[in-house]
């Protein structure tokens, strides 16, 4: 019985470690030919296991009339550990985005 408990504990630990590694993965979305401007990064924190993650915690990028070149979502190791320590109540994620420099047709000199 004790052996099974240890195996289960080991599996749980491995699952947690797997979640820790997977939590730092990057999710990247880009338009074709992104032509990016500077990188911007903000942190959005979700509280209460997502039940409280409504528009009050969204972020508006200053890109009116310009558009995104690409968007990237990731979690740093520190953010994952914070999420673990709070049993998921506090779940920060980092979102990086770049504006589009604009694409002009070939002109005449």
């Amino acid at each position, binding site marked *: 019985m004790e052996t099974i408990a240890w195996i289960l504990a080991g599996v749980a630990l491995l699952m947690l470690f797997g979640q820790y590694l997977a939590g730092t993965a*990057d999710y*990247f979305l*880009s338009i074709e*030919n*992104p*032509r*990016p*401007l*500077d*990188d911007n990064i903000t942190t959005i924190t979700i509280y209460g296991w997502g039940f409280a993650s409504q528009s009050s915690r969204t972020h508006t990028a200053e890109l009116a009339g310009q558009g995104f070149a*690409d968007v*990237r979502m990731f979690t740093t190791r520190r953010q994952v550990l914070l999420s673990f320590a709070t049993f998921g109540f506090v779940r920060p994620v980092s979102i990086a985005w770049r504006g589009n*420099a*604009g*694409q*002009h047709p*070939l*002109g*005449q*000199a």
Partner: protein
Amino acid sequence: MATAGIVDLERAGPWENYHRTGTSHLRRRWALRSGDAGRGRDDIAQAAASVRDWLLDAKSKDIPVRPVGGAWSLSNIQLVQHGWMLNTRRFNRCFRLAAEDFARPGSVDAGAFMLVEGGVQIDEINDKLQEMGRSLSTTGASNGQTLPGACATATHGSVLDAGGIQQHVRAVQIVTPGGIYWIEPAAGLMSEDFVRDTGSTLLRDDEAFAAALVAVGSLGIVTAMVIETEPLYLVRPYIKLIDFSRDDLETLQRGDFRAFSEAKGVRGLDPYFVMVITTPYRPFGRQAVVRFLYKFPWHPDYKRHEPAELGAGYDAQTMMAWALRNFPWARGWILQTIMRLAVGRGITDEVYGTWGESLETPKPLANSFSAALFCDRARLVQTLEALCGAFSRAGGSTAVTLRFVKGGHGLLSPARWENTAAIDCDGPGGPRTKRAYLRTLDAIERDGLAHTLHWGKINNLTPARVAADYGNDLVRWKAVRDRLLSDPADRRLFATEELRAFGLAE
């Protein structure tokens, strides 16, 4: 109608470069934007006038300035502290030229040239050239830099008969507080009417042109360039894991690329591009990655492929950066495994793409380290062995890439030998790797191995080193700088900490 010019981004504070190797603490950020003037020369004239007014304003307030395009360089050469930064990426239009725009209309093929604004990215140039049935001959390994930024640091590829990317440039518009200059070789290129329409003072001068080709961001703000291109062509990539021996390196040192290709690539073809990636721990006797490109005339009925299918891609580098940073004790095994996994069966099938299609813009998923050392190809074996030995002893964790580039094209081009070999170290960022690389450079210097370093990558340049490396060419370059920026206050505008460390600014 929107006029080209500078807009205030109304932002101050910290700004990081693309690869996050440095931070500028800025008083203010500005952006140069294209307008919608019908003719390119009008757009450029408006922008250049706006830049000059901006420089005069900065000068009157004694605030240093720095233009930044793709912010690509890792050497922090694009940083300015407590100054104004001008982002040029939205000044990005490209224009066809007509025969009557040239000084000798009957003796040039106007369709071979293109006028580009100072914020145009290499990727955009590739697309526009493809529309014109033209192509660049060479670029760096990725396409996210702006053309003036790439030229300013003499960015190079590995096309065997090509120099740095600045070899395409035929005329440069540079703005200083003292004036707007159109710089071209003494033989002349553009008509006086055209140059006047761009709002510039014509400067036909071989010395000034040779200095402006690799300006290291020190001669003023580059607002436009005229480039010459070649007819569109296709490249066939061939990428494979190979057994790499010292004999193979000696073959490369001799410049016998055909023999290397016969042994490791596609038989019966002359390679256009050759690149080898190996590890510093055991550069020989283990596996290395080789990338060949073979050049073919363009035809419209080839099957289109994604850049990754043609061998482009930085993702392997960013993954490598992550793995090596987190597990430095296993770096030898990691590098070999990544090569095996990333290359797999390689690209050995017959696939084709244009030069532009074979490149892609990297995604900044991880902090990177990148350094490049140039040496005479005739001393490649000795230099690589010295570099790998010192680097691995010091605990450096990057792959080592060999590229080949022709010398010349600019007074401050680091490709200073007729046949130059570039040894790049690319991998994870971090103080450990940087420290190891700097120790390596010290060791190579102690061994007396002649070399130069990339302006835009990690280096240990000092005024004395730069003076020794470039000799009289540096004296000539400074003479041009002092002509273009004759007022010491003008030179102070562009004098950043990094340029002072290189001895390019007082």
